[in-house]
């Protein structure tokens, strides 16, 4: 029991971290909470389903194209909705909140109420050390998710893009003086945030099929992870995701399956009460 609970906690934790990565990035750089994060995730799931199933595209190509389209869509949303709200972070929250409801209902009209699932990459399950059986698609999602997370970390730590993102998040005006076009960077990073939501979407859709409203719980856990880990801290995002995954699964294993998600919130409240800025957060001046 403990073994599978921990294993599942880690897998789900990585999945949570992956889903929260985009939110964390956008909060960190732009101080904008993208409430419609879950809907971008779902959109990518739908696209990868459409391309792979209806158009019969190669799986990898379908996924890449889906992420690319959501990225462009993210750029558009930044341009039309988010950009005018810079400096008023609460207003962007209101706008993206409304956007999320609009998208949910648009999906319902376009894709219908039934769940959609792109084909799995692998089939079957693996026997883990003779302890328990574990779905292969989940293991694949774990690997893919870890790759995306490592990729994002590498990008942030090692490339110019990461450097200017970090600089901009610390001092936007100064970055501008150093020659960074922060307007374009914002657009790009919002797009990237959406693309990360999309990456999570295409990786997870074969495990958890997408429905018009399935984005809500995704976004909700992403927010919990981000607040838990500390606003805008990527490291916090990973630790937050893993903490949440483990707490929920161990709680479900030993306490109550019905209250699984409440355990996560309880941890969140405890952390906030003790460290108001989250595990890795900095208190804003």
């Amino acid at each position, binding site marked *: 029991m403990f073994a599978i609970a921990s294993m599942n906690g880690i897998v789900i934790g990585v999945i949570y971290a992956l889903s929260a990565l985009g939110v964390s990035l956008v909060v960190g750089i732009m101080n904008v909470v993208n409430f419609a994060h879950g809907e971008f995730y779902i959109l990518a799931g739908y696209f990868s389903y459409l391309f792979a199933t209806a158009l019969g595209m190669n799986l990898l190509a379908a996924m890449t194209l889906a992420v690319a389209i959501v990225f462009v869509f993210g750029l558009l949303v930044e341009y039309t909705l988010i950009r005018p709200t810079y400096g008023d972070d609460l207003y962007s929250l209101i706008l993206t909140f409304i956007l999320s409801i*609009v998208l949910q*209902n648009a999906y319902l*009209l376009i894709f219908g109420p039934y769940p959609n699932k792109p084909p799995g990459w692998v089939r079957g399950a693996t026997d883990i050390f003779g302890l328990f059986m574990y779905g292969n698609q989940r293991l694949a999602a774990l690997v893919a998710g870890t790759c995306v997370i490592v990729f994002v970390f590498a990008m942030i730590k090692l490339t110019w893009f990461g450097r200017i993102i970090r600089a901009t998040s610390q001092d936007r005006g100064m970055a501008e003086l150093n020659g960074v076009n922060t307007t374009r960077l914002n657009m790009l990073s919002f797009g990237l945030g959406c693309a990360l939501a999309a990456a999570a979407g295409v990786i997870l859709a074969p495990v958890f099929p997408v429905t018009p409203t399935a984005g*809500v719980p995704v976004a909700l856990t992403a927010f919990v992870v981000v*607040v838990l880990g500390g606003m805008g801290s990527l490291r916090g995002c990973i630790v937050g995701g893993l903490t949440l995954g483990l707490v929920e699964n161990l709680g479900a294993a030993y306490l109550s399956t019905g*209250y699984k998600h409440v355990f996560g919130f309880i941890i969140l409240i405890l952390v906030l009460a003790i460290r108001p800025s989250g595990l890795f957060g900095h208190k804003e001046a």
Partner: protein
Amino acid sequence: MSQGASILKSNRKNFLYGAGLAAFAVLPWMLGVYNQHVLIVCLFYTMMAASWNLIAGYTGQISFGHAAFAGIGAYVSGILAVKAGLNPWVGVAAGTVAAAFFGLLVGLLCLRMGGIYLSLTTLGFSEILHIIINNEYEITRGTMGLQVPGLTTSYSKISYFYIFLVGAVITLTIVYKLVHSNVGLNFRAVQNDERAASALGVDVVRTRLLAFTVSSALAGMAGALFGHYMMLITPHIPSLDQQFLVLSMTVIGGLGSFVGPVIGAFCLEILSEYIRAWGEYHVLVFGLVALVVARFAPKGLVGIYKAWRGKKRPETA
């Protein structure tokens, strides 16, 4: 402007409010049962939007837990009525107090950080509430909803209309009094600049907590009344959909303006009655309207009206 003129103007304003209220109070006698129901729902949303506006519009705290507090009011009142056989009116009072209490707790937890933390924590709070309502099926009857007695012995739309009218007037009066009192000055000062406010003797945390608690209590009252009107309390009262409606109404009416939420509540509720026939399109249309207004007219309908009047009769600076 001289003192006298301003008193005159405020008297005229009061007179207008009074006359409008009187005219509105006789309206249901001229309408059918169905439209009476629509008016009652409008009044419910007026209470919700006006009280949400108190925190969002006047102190700049975007709470996503407003519907949750309405839910707490409704469930506490309903459970007391069903399980303890309490008079529903006592239940409404208890529900209001309970909502205030939870508002205070949530406020204490996250008002220190303010801003986005408050938004996300209230969101989490409303989710916890949902899970608890679903799981504690024995007490809350889960999604099936808790059937509760009405507030009056014989069911009549007209009497509910007046109950809700009184509720809305109470809510609006409290909001108006608060905003136009010394505390209201503090609300605005805190929203503008916390540090400067505290240097002028404003207890920032208490001011915010006060706004949050009062607003939660008012939501609790609205929720409790609504539960007894529907005679059924379901997890839909504290849902995100409901929160979305309240937020849209306030934003479309005019965030931070006194009449904005009232206008927003009436416009959107009546609009939604009309476009309901469009079935699955109606929420989408709703959202799009809200999105366009929020994006292009951040001050809502009230802002549009003011800008239009300002253009017609340019203010002398």
